[in-house]
């Protein structure tokens, strides 16, 4: 079964110029798709449509076969910035999706507490976000996204704000941890290396109005080799994508 189906979606903010036109995309269960494209190409707009923040003029968004077009609160969404609330402790930030669903605070804390170790942020429960490093904050934000419990997650450039070293550390961690969770994920990036390294399939969002023009399947099995990004295959993928983006 498909985790998510985006069918013929067109969207414009003003009713005249389409940002997205007849966009189709299918996400399989447990799959990780990278959405690659230039800045301002409509990637975040597409995410807002999928998350129900923007209602498309035409087309449908189906979650596990159910029509959720224009409905928010169904899909886990992580925005570009970590968006941790500065006035809540890390555990209370992470527990927020559960609390919003009506869970008692104490129980929600207990429930999220079990995941802190796997996400590499054990010991930060009672800290405030300002006390954490960028990488740690991003992990906390990812855990919060995961705690939302949706079957599909949208991640909008989750690692773009991190420095190169932290970023590659996060990639390794992501491949180890998030891959085990088998969350069906769409991931926005404009880092080609990141896209090849993490995804099962890369979709190029191009043109004005934007639509999916190409798909590249990364056949390298998961879990991936540590040195995958140094191999000849990796370079071939990179060449292929760059030539298509030009």
């Amino acid at each position, binding site marked *: 079964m498909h985790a998510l189906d985006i069918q013929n979606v067109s969207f414009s903010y003003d009713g005249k110029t389409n940002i997205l036109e007849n966009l189709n995309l299918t996400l399989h269960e447990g799959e990780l798709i990278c959405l690659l494209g230039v800045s301002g190409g409509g990637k975040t707009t597409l995410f807002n449509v999928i*998350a129900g*923040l923007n209602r498309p003029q035409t087309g449908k968004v189906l979650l596990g076969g159910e029509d959720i077009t224009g409905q*928010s*609160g169904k899909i886990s969404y992580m*925005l570009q910035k970590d968006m941790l609330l*500065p*006035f809540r402790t890390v555990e209370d930030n992470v527990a*927020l999706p559960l609390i919003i669903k009506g869970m008692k605070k104490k129980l929600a804390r207990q429930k999220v507490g079990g995941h802190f170790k796997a996400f590499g942020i054990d010991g930060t429960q009672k800290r405030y976000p*300002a006390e954490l490093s960028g990488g740690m904050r991003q992990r906390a934000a990812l855990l919060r996204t995961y705690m939302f419990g949706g079957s599909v997650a949208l991640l909008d450039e989750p690692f773009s704000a991190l420095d190169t070293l932290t970023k590659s550390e996060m990639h390794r961690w992501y491949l180890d941890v998030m891959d085990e969770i088998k969350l069906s994920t769409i991931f926005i990036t404009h880092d080609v290396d990141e896209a090849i390294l993490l995804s099962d399939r890369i979709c190029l969002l191009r043109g004005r109005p934007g639509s999916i023009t190409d798909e590249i399947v990364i056949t390298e099995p998961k879990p991936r080799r540590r040195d995958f990004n140094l191999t000849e295959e990796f370079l071939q993928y990179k060449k292929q994508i760059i030539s298509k983006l030009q």
Partner: protein
Amino acid sequence: MKEKLRSTINKVLPPLAALLLIFLAWYCICAFGSVPKYMLPSPGDVLAAFQKDWQLMLSHARVTLAETFIGLFFGILTGFLMAVIMDKISLVRKMLYPLIVISQTIPTIAIAPLLVIWLGYQMLPKIILIVLVVFFPIAISLLEGFASVDADTVNLMRTMGASDIQIFRYVKLPNSLGQFFSSLKISVSYAVVSAVVSEWIGGTEGLGCYMTRVRKSFSSDKMFAVIILISVLSLLLIWLTHIIQHACMPWDKINQKRRNQ
């Protein structure tokens, strides 16, 4: 810890020294100058006035403080409700916001006699005056706090399925607490002053009435004493607000420390 102590000393010492110098100058003028006592009592006279009248002053202070607290309570409540309604319904904001701002140009001392004519010499007109003074900074600061919420954060809350009330409770309200407390500190001292001013106009109890009486009998020493008492009360209330703020916003200290680094 040592560092903290040093920075506290650095902050406290200079104004304390200045204050001492002022007192010294004041003392010298009274001791060696030819200023009559009814115009400028010496620090010693003021202290003596305190010693003599402190029980009476405290009983008046109790009334003034009661008015202050009741006025503050209703002022904060009105300001809060006003801010919530104006935040929620933009038509109400458009209608009321300019009026509220303009209304602030009316000096309180000018409305006080009117309130006495309408509502009598009891506590009510005094409380109303304090409410009028307090609600404005509270309403405006809360409204700005609510409006300054990051739009992306609100969107994120929506994707989690949060209702308007949940967004208010988990994001907007805590987000505006800092601004709320800054304006509360101003409001608190305004409230004390307003209570005193309204007691000048009419009434039988309160520090303002006491002030009027000692002024009429040219007891400048008592006048000075009561002015100092009013300042001390205001300071204590501001300090109390500060304590409450720290208790309500434990994250503030940490975030501030990060900012300073």
